[in-house]
């Protein structure tokens, strides 16, 4: 597999100019995620109202894969129900680590399918989702990938 399949232009663009970067003024949930292997750190805020995600924002210090995932993910989450958000994470994990690389219903996240071929980098892509899940549950502490 070519590196260009991993680092597609869309991914590079999101990593250079992450959408929804920053912090929310009044989030309903906040979580910190940390990948102790590489030092990637993300703080993610969510605003949930009536079971629907109204807004997502994040502050990330990390590699292109984790920042791009956070950026694309945050764009896609707005307007989704909690159930839909959890389902998206399940499908995303399936695409990266499942027995076959199914990308059904992943929409823009499909550009990250190439991460599957780089097992050492899967955790970079899943860190934002793990952090999202903790933010939705508003869990205290820091989510670790290890």
């Amino acid at each position, binding site marked *: 597999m070519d590196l260009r399949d991993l*680092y597609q232009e869309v991914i590079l663009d999101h990593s250079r100019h992450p959408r929804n970067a920053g912090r929310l003024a009044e989030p309903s949930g906040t979580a910190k995620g940390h990948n102790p292997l590489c030092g990637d750190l993300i703080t993610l805020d969510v605003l949930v109202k009536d079971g629907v995600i109204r807004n997502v924002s994040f502050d990330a*210090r990390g*590699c292109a894969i984790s920042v791009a995932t956070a950026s694309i993910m945050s764009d896609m989450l707005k307007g989704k129900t909690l159930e839909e958000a959890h389902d998206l994470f399940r499908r995303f994990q399936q695409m990266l680590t499942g027995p076959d690389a199914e990308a059904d219903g992943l929409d823009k996240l499909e550009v990250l399918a190439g991460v599957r071929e780089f097992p050492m980098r899967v955790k970079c892509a899943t860190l934002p989702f793990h952090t999202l899940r903790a933010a939705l549950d508003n869990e205290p502490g820091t989510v670790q990938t290890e």
Partner: protein
Amino acid sequence: MNAPAGQNPEILAARDDFPLLARPMHGRPLAFLDSAASAQKPRAVLDGLRDFYESEYANVHRGVYLLSAQATDRYEAARETVRRFLNAGRAEEIVFTRGATEAINLVAETLGRSGRLEPDDEIVLTVLEHHSNIVPWQLMRDATGVRIHAAAADQDGNVDVEAVFREVTDRTQLIAFSHVSNTTGTVLPAREICHRARERGILTLVDGCQAVPHAAVDVQDLACDFYTFSGHKLYGPSGIGALYGRLDLLTSLPPWQGGGSMIEEVTFERTTYAPPPARYEAGTPNIAGAVGLAAAIDYVQRFGSENIQRHESVVLKYGVDRLQAVDGVRLIGTPRHRAGSISFVMDDVHPHDVGTVLDREGVAVRVGHHCAQPAMRHFDVPATIRASLGIYTHASDFDALVEGLGKAKALFQP
């Protein structure tokens, strides 16, 4: 690029002794620049292990049969090899451990239980330490109430004697530090630190993991009280390492783990313990590991530690010069004395992404915090890229690295 002058032809040829280095990586020649994490193994070690298992293996210090006697001889001969390697005064001062991490835990735990330390006593570390020379002391602190101080490094990554002794007070009982930093490659002034500590009655522990592969070490000249290294970073097998401890200390500290070999007499009322080194080697030891470690030491000593040091300093300087000439590369640590490792970051590209690009070019480097998070905070970077060398590293490996960095730059920079 032209090969740098001053390389040792015999050491240049050493690469052929390491079978793994012939393995192509992603269709390219392997440029293995991660020896500080773990070094590759020469045929002498691989053959030595196989020969030992095929012809002399049995448990040690137990059987009356010939094989057990031979295996015991080989195990104790390995101890003597380590003693000579470190120029310790006596073989009893060498304890085999799983590695340096276990050795530091052994010292921290037994010292903590020895009754020598009182709450509010102090120990001094440095900001450059690997987690294995921080966390064991924190566990000991939790058990004893001692306080931990960390000596500062300057912006170039030097740790001066003065910086260490600024942290020393009348309550300081121990100074523990790396001989060579695994992150910046800084060579610490170990001799000066240990001599000054000894004058003040302060114990010293030196973590020599990143030093022994690159230079001769003499524990008597250093005047340290404890010295440790891991075999796998010295071209030996994983799971074996050694602790040097001054005999009077090893004799007076309490035993560490309990089990076979470390006892004299056991009753249910009371057990008496064997003198060192057996006192600290409970259970069946890593017998073949010790034999393999001795084979690795014999291997490097064929070249001579001073020759290795001279040769590697030429290759390392070549690497530093080449990296410094790359636009957008910033070295993390530019110490006055460097051995083994070069850490750096690159503008606009995260180390993790650099590592993936380099891998595809056949270049193996370590990216991340190198188990030294306080050092990362000191330099205010979350992670670095680290290129580290071994006896088999050629200048051309750094050429491949620099070429790979060019590809990373082309891919990521807008």
